[in-house]
């Protein structure tokens, strides 16, 4: 494999080159939102400076260009996921909206009283609440694949008894945003197919960090957000296997998504346009296109290995410090993030001190995994998450910071 110049890549991210609280910024919160390279910013600026108009409506030059750019982004996204067709790609506002679309529109049509919705205890609220609402609305039952304590691993031994023929839909995350667990998504989809359950993979944490091939995974739906993978905020992707999108009724309705409208009835376009009511986030799609190009240029497998090496290093060094409770897989088979708790300091205090004293951007809280934190008996944890622009030196700085934070909050005890 070619040698990657990670330091040169980092220079593509102007935002990283700044001081906060008088220290060089160390951005370790990419799991919440990644930063954007110049290539993405330039693509968006170029679009607005030269090509912007509304899509699909006009017949003038700019509208043609905007439409072409928007649809090119769809084709590029299909390629990024190895989808069979660009028609399987719906642009949404984000992971959250993608899941709401599936739960409301597909679920509203196909999930009935007595059916079971199977989730895992790892799910982000975005992949829990839409299903909880659906269950409340339809009288379906929710089931959860349990997590084996702090290891963050799913208790797959229980899958036989949970994944029964009553399961209508099985929705699960690829990579846990709190525990860094990497789930065997292809295996889970295969098991779901055996009982005829529809699958949804939450790829919010994997799309920009791990190779992704929807046909290899064998999922029915897969969702992610542009902003976590170098693209703009306000844009997300819903991949739906053609057959599944075809059996999904419209969700939001309005302009763009119709064939014909009468006072009392209307007919709708086929997927994906049926699910894109109103003027879409055209510039967002253009930015996402540039982001996908950027990622594939670096290589997702290389990014995965880079981030994993940083996470392993962080995990080992935090363990050596002592007085630290570490969440997630213990065997190094984790994604590029580490959540931890200090015996002597609350996560909020850790994050505040890391920020003000060390210029470190961490996340603190329950990371939208409240039931999981509750199960683990944890109110909140601190999280460091890594991307390819982070360095080993930054991880070492994190460790120095944590050691100082421990000292500070211990003082006087």
């Amino acid at each position, binding site marked *: 494999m070619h040698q990657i110049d990670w330091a040169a890549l980092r220079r593509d991210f102007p935002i990283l080159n700044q001081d906060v*609280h*008088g220290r060089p910024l160390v951005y370790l919160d990419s799991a919440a939102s990644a930063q954007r390279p110049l290539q993405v910013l330039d693509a968006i600026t170029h679009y607005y400076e030269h090509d912007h108009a509304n899509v699909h409506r006009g017949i003038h030059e700019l509208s043609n260009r905007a439409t072409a750019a928007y649809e090119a982004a769809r084709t590029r996204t299909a390629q990024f996921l190895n989808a069979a067709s660009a028609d399987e790609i719906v642009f949404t506002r984000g992971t959250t909206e993608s899941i709401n679309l599936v739960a409301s529109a597909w679920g509203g049509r196909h999930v009935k009283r007595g059916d079971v919705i199977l989730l895992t205890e790892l799910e982000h609220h975005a992949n829990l609440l839409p299903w909880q609402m659906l269950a409340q609305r339809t009288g379906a039952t929710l089931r959860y694949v349990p997590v084996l304590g702090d290891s963050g691993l799913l208790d797959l031994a229980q899958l036989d008894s949970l994944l029964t023929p009553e399961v209508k839909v099985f929705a699960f995350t690829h990579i846990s945003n709190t525990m860094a667990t990497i789930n065997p998504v292809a295996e889970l989809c295969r098991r779901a197919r055996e009982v005829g359950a529809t699958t949804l993979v939450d790829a919010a944490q994997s799309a920009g960090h791990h190779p992704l091939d929807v046909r290899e995974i064998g999922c029915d739906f897969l969702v992610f957000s542009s902003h976590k993978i170098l693209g703009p905020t306000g844009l997300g992707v819903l991949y739906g296997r053609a057959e599944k999108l075809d059996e999904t009724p419209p969700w939001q309705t309005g302009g763009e998504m119709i064939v014909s409208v009468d006072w009392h009835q209307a007919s709708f376009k086929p997927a994906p346009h049926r699910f894109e009511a109103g003027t879409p986030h055209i510039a967002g799609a253009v930015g996402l296109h540039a982001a996908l190009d950027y990622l594939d240029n670096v290589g997702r497998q290389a990014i995965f290995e880079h981030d994993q090496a940083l996470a392993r290093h962080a995990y080992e060094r935090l363990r050596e410090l002592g007085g630290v409770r570490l969440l997630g897989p213990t065997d190094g088979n984790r994604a590029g993030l580490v959540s931890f708790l200090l015996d002597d*300091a*609350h*996560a*909020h*205090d850790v994050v*505040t*001190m890391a920020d*003000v*004293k060390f210029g470190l951007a961490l996340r*603190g*809280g*329950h990371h939208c995994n*409240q039931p999981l*934190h509750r199960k683990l008996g944890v*109110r*909140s944890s601190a999280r460091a998450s890594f991307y390819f622009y982070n360095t080993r030196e930054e991880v070492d700085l994190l460790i*120095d910071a944590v050691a*100082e934070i421990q000292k*500070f*909050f211990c*003082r*006087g*005890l």
Partner: protein
Amino acid sequence: MDFNSPDFEELYQSIILDHSRKPRNFGELPEASVTASGDNPSCGDAITLQLRFDPADAQKLAEVKFHGDGCSICMASASMMTTKIKGRTRNEAEALRGSFQSMLTLNHGSADEAAPPPPKELGDLRLLQGVRKFPQRIKCATLAWHALHQALSEDAAKRVTFDIEGKGQPAR
């Protein structure tokens, strides 16, 4: 490692850290007249405040205790609050709450100089004024005070739990 960051030093003064490490009036109050819980859904901090009114004077807070789990700012604020309101009347406690709230939020967003000097009656609680510079932490400092407000409000008699957005709901 240099620790010369004025905002940080102000936030984590030794008295505040001392209260957070050794919270006063911490524990359960068996014969509480009223119990209110404050919950900070975005970060998971949760504290329960219990008050006992003086049998001879229903206006007077004879005993105050709290328990729960939160960051140092949340715990210190709760601890300092209990020492301050114990023995006071309902109205005095409510007035302190108003002063405390104003200290942290009045003119917020304007220059720091615009922060009015906190009223003397707040005593040590004035040390928490440094929280103003950490907007994300203001709700940590006010959690116990929201619980106090809830406990002193009319329907507190029927024991309520609430979250910081203020949506009251009957306790289970």
